[in-house]
């Protein structure tokens, strides 16, 4: 077998899907299960080229249901497994994701958002926020990272495996078609060489009495009370670990603000650029970016939002991130404006224009 895929630090210029494939290899993932759908296909393309060199495997399944459930099987066998999907595939995968949620199965799924609803476009959107954070017939006991550049695609793919196996909640890297397809420079590295400990997977099924007992795993229960106990203890644990997982970034949010722009993912880049240009022109504007959409940085956003005269929600969806934001800010007397562009990219100029319009009110 070949040596470590990445030795030392490697400066590269590549597409987001290629970055993710490299990151999964660097994270020592064992198996990818997948089904073709745009815009995630190249994750499979690069994985199938890289995997055999490092003793890793791939299975192209018959559909996304199967990709999700085989991923669950592989994780139960004690291997680091992942899948990747988008749009209608994400819709189908909510079934296996809900099983993973109920059974605390640490699967990792890369979601490259495309336009919706239905087949819509193969290009780009931020319309899978609600589906990825709260899809399925459950309570959203999931962890969702929303990266905004290629360095983060690499960093948070590696982190997703560690988070999943440490906390045993299904973990998602929520990218999008733009991030998937565009090329950008970044530094790839071996996580262990950087002192990042890779959490070892645990075998649930297939090693018999080696673990001292046979496991009988199920997601069906006989009574309401039995289920209630399980959901409540899961909720309790989710709330307990949330502060350890929550991540966010603030740009120019130190003083009082006329406008606070809230945006996530690739749209955050437009917001950052807008803030920087508007600051040069003397506008008191800042930007808050949740990196984890689940759990959501509630307390952190509440503290910052209260120093702003007005909020501006910016996203390539019609208020899906805003729902999470409003939930977090519940009870505060705040005013908000919106820049919603479902399924369409957002430029810094559009954000600037909107902020200026708000400021003239």
């Amino acid at each position, binding site marked *: 077998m070949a040596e470590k895929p990445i030795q030392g630090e490697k400066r590269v210029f590549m597409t987001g899907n290629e970055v993710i494939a490299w990151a999964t290899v660097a994270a020592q993932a064992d198996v990818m299960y997948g089904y073709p759908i745009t815009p995630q296909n190249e994750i499979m393309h690069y994985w199938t080229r890289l995997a055999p060199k490092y003793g890793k495997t791939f299975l192209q399944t018959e559909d996304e249901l*199967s990709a999700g459930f085989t991923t669950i099987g592989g994780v139960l066998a004690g291997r680091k497994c992942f899948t990747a999907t988008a749009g209608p595939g994400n819709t189908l995968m909510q079934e296996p994701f809900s099983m993973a949620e109920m059974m605390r199965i640490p699967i990792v799924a890369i979601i490259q958002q495309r336009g919706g609803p239905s087949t819509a476009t193969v290009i780009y959107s931020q319309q899978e926020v609600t589906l990825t954070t709260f899809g399925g017939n459950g309570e959203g006991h999931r962890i969702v990272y929303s990266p905004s550049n290629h360095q983060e695609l690499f960093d948070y793919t590696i982190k997703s495996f560690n988070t999943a196996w440490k906390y045993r909640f299904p973990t998602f890297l929520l990218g999008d078609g733009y991030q998937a397809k565009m090329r950008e420079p970044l530094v790839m590295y071996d996580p262990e060489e950087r002192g990042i400990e890779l959490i070892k997977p645990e075998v649930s099924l297939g090693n018999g009495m080696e673990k001292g007992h046979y496991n009988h795993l199920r997601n069906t229960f006989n009574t309401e009370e039995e289920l209630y106990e399980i959901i409540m203890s899961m909720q309790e644990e989710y709330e307990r670990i949330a502060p350890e997982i929550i991540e966010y970034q603030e740009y120019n949010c130190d003083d009082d603000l006329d406008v606070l722009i809230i945006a996530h993912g690739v749209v955050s880049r437009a917001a950052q650029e807008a803030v920087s240009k508007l600051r040069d022109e003397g506008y008191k504007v800042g930007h808050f970016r949740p990196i984890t959409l689940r759990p959501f940085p509630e307390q952190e956003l509440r503290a910052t939002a209260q120093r702003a005269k007005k909020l501006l929600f910016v996203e390539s969806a019609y208020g899906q991130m805003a729902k999470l934001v409003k939930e977090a800010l519940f009870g505060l007397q705040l005013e908000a404006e919106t820049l919603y562009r479902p399924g369409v990219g957002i430029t810094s100029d559009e954000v600037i224009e909107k902020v200026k319009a708000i400021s003239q009110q």
Partner: protein
Amino acid sequence: MSEEVSVATNSLPPRLPKSYNIESKPHKFCPGCGHGSVLRAIAESIDELGIQDRTVYGCDIGCSLLSWDFFAVDSVQAHHGRTTPVITGIKRANPNVIGIAYMGDGGGYAIGSQHLVNAANRNERITVFLVNNTNYGMTGGQMAPTTLPGQKTETSPYGRDIEQTGQPFLGPEMVAAVTGEGAYVARGTTSNFIQLKKFVKRAIENQVNGKGFSFVEVLAGCPTNWRTDAKDTWGRIENDMANYFKVGELKVPAKEE
């Protein structure tokens, strides 16, 4: 009446397979249900092949769900129709595992048929047991893909009209057609346990030998939903069902020279 004597002190303990989970016995199936026989054949085969600690047993939703803690082996209960991909995922990730997927006719031939067809076509090194009792038992006796022509169920109350709903599904015939070399395909019946046991064991052994996809459909009774007594239940399995669903081995891997 003489003094009461407990069964335990007055009889020999039953001879149960080693791979039975004693804590879940007696099992949870209805009186006269066929699942018990199939599960016993699986347990005896696991014992005889000495694979208890390598086995992962997966069960579907439907009555098969009630077997989630039946065995003293690593077990997982999946979603309706999704046991085949869960076991496939386990086997692919750890080829040392002996993966068994257990399901009903609804799980295998309706909601999970795409998984069965494709796992068979890929010749996955897993073993699938599918219990055919010609109806959805757990949900109250609805029509299944295997419901016989004219058979009354909750969703075919005037009898299954095959003009409207198609022919009863011939699973092993389909699996035999799409699998490659090394596959094992058979149809057994709970009315012939000795033969059934032989098929079940061969289907697991075929995986142990790493040959190919292994599939056994088993004809079984559902007296609760059929509303049949013992005689009619047995008669339906042995005659009506066996006349339509031919019992026997459909595909056996070539013996190595």
